[in-house]
């Protein structure tokens, strides 16, 4: 029986070996050619741009973060073979294509205005005080086209111009702050900083608080659960197990 279990884990390990260490050439059937910084590399078809660069021999320091589309580290610009259009993408979320010319953008230089959220007034003019360049937006929509999250970036910049915090927050919520919009913007707006400010202002001043949370914080501070904690913490493991099982049987589902 013991032997059977060991081989089970080995079988599981084998099934994903290509993901946990470098890919072996002999396991690859289909190939494409990409040009990274102008150099041609043969890489396995179907990999993401990030995986393909690693296959080619790059050990990434910049331009690689969560590897799952949440962190905005791996901004990439590329052109497809025979196309004039400059495309943008996250390297960890985009498959390589044959003939792709690409480069990664390791950093987006942009100063963030400093503010004290506690002291700001929830007024439209405050946004323009910190981000006067928003008024330079020419509605060219380049930011929206550059966004790898497919957000309506120009629309939230326009909302910012009107001081509509709610709309800025809602339209920009899924921003991963990769900086591609700001790099492409002809009006030199730093959209993701505008969005961060807008979201915090709306979160702090635009949405009512739930009373239950405040109430519970006070109850805990007043020690209202101390007695119950002392009781529970003095139980034997066996007693605690039965309390747990009972509690699980009263669980709320969905």
């Amino acid at each position, binding site marked *: 029986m013991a032997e059977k279990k060991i081989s089970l884990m080995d079988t599981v390990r084998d099934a994903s070996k290509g993901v946990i260490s470098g890919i072996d050439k002999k396991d690859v059937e289909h190939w494409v050619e990409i040009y990274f910084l102008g150099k041609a590399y043969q890489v396995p078809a179907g990999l993401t741009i990030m995986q393909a660069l690693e296959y080619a*021999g790059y050990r990434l320091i910049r331009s690689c973060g969560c590897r799952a589309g949440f962190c905005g580290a791996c901004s990439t610009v590329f052109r497809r073979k025979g196309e004039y259009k400059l495309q943008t993408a996250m390297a960890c979320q985009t498959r390589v294509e044959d003939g792709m010319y690409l480069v990664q953008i390791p950093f987006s230089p942009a100063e963030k205005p400093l503010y004290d959220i506690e002291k700001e007034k929830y007024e439209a003019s405050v946004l323009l005080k910190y981000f006067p360049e928003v008024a330079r937006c020419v509605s060219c929509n380049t930011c929206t086209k550059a966004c790898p999250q497919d957000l309506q970036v120009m629309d939230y910049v326009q909302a910012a111009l009107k001081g509509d915090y709610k709309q800025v927050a809602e339209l920009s919520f899924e921003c991963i702050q990769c900086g591609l919009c700001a790099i492409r913007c002809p009006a030199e707006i730093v959209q993701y900083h505008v969005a961060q400010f807008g979201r915090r202002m709306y979160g702090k001043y635009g949405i009512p608080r739930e009373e239950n949370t405040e109430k519970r914080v006070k109850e805990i501070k007043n020690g209202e659960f101390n007695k119950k904690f002392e009781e529970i913490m003095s139980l034997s493991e066996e007693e605690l197990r039965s309390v747990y099982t009972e509690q699980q049987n009263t669980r709320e589902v969905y």
Partner: protein
Amino acid sequence: MAELEFVGGYPTYMRESIKKVEQTRNRRIGKLVDQMTPKEREDILNLCHPDYAPGGKRELKIGPNKGEIVPNEVADLLEAYPLVNPDKIDLSVVDYDTDILIIGGGLAGTSAALLANDNGIPADRILLTNKLRHGDANSMMAQGGTQAADRPNDSPVLHYIDAMGGGHFTNKPDVLRALVEDAPGVIKWLEELGALFDKDENGNFVELTGGGTARRRMHACADYTGMEELRVIRDEFRNRKIPVLEFFPAIELLTDEENKVVGAILWNMETDEYKIVRAKATVLATGGFGRLHIRGFPTTNHYGATYDGPVMAYRTGARLRDADTVQYHPTGAAYPQQIIGLLLTEKLRTSGAQPVNKDGEEFVFPLEPRDVEAASFIRECYIRENGVKTPTGMKGIWLDTPLIDILNGPGATEKAFPAMVRMFQRFGIDMIKDPVLVFPTLHYQNGGIETDPEGSTNIKGLFVAGEISGGVHGKNRLMGNSTLDCMVFGRRAGVHSAEYVKKGVDVGQPGLKHVKKYVDELKSAKIETDRKSPLLLPDYRGKAALARGIDIF
């Protein structure tokens, strides 16, 4: 091999199985498999959970936890030689002299910085250093939510009991109590800083359950919870002008004559130059270890999750706790190839998605604790042989995501899971119409450096917070308790390191005596190896390129 034909992102042979899932769907609505009894849970864990199945672990030969069992991949890093020769490095010039050094800028480290600042440490007497960018952390990728018992039918005591049960009653009681009692305060703190949680039109939280939680207490920001929490507190951090270094990992802690931790050696990854930091207190918040790929599992973790903190701390004599346990998240992506191992949040199951096998049959209650749920998926795939095989040879279980819209109304999936919908869309799959294929993935480091409720360790001057720590989750963490852990103990480490500093710390000469001693121990234990640690980053370079590498500069 013939070329595969694809329909809606799936090869046609997988489509056959999807048809069966569709056929059983109506019958399954509202009907769930019963939860397992404690005995059944224990049996399935012993049968096929990677932590319990034989092999994969060994006894540590040296250090404070000598004789205890840890995963081989962890032992390999603890039983390894330092990156720098302690006799050859010049420590005489201090580059940064500060009160509090924080290593790691996820939710834990960033919270620590803010609370240290709130508690009397001026911004310019704090230094936060990051291996990659500030915010490059597992925190950024947390999807599901943050637990806080704030509803009238709930209480911190119920939260405590849930976490104890989920952790198999091995959690450190006083630390766990701190976690659950601080939780509502953390949510309030985030709201006051302007974080956007899922709320109804009256401002009340939309709260869900998680695996092993008896009440609805998950506070979410769609499926970008960690990202929203972290970018808000990072923005606050930046507003306060707290000094920060990026691409500057710590590679060794420094200790003085009394073996207090008094700073660290940092290394500029891009120029190779090292810098010496002298600090009165050091907060380690370097996160977890998913990129060690324990037992060969893919991972949900960030590129930098390589166990650096415990490696450095262990050399100073810091004790580890529950270092033998690893959390495998039941629902990592198994298909397509480009996203194998990435997280599909547990919230999908709390919103109604059911796991089913290749015949569309349900086989497990969807919300068992994570270890039990994961083990049942492995059994279904590899013992009962009811998994779906992918073109790359992995096996997986269907997560029937179309149920979410059926149960909650059209548009529900898109509203609650924009990140997931987007990720699958990028690879041609519509998870609103079709199920997605999942298999357990390495998710979380349950144990770590033992801490008390204040974030202190057995080593003076060394504080820890977040995934690096051990004790609060025991041997298995529940959903929604990791982002919470980071913020509760990040805040506490900030407060208590500030108090420690304010009481007055007599910082001696920063040195590496502890590393020399550790090297001696390695040698006397006859550990002969060219392994060096901390690891800093995994290596995914292609084998062909590596085989022809020449190391010139």
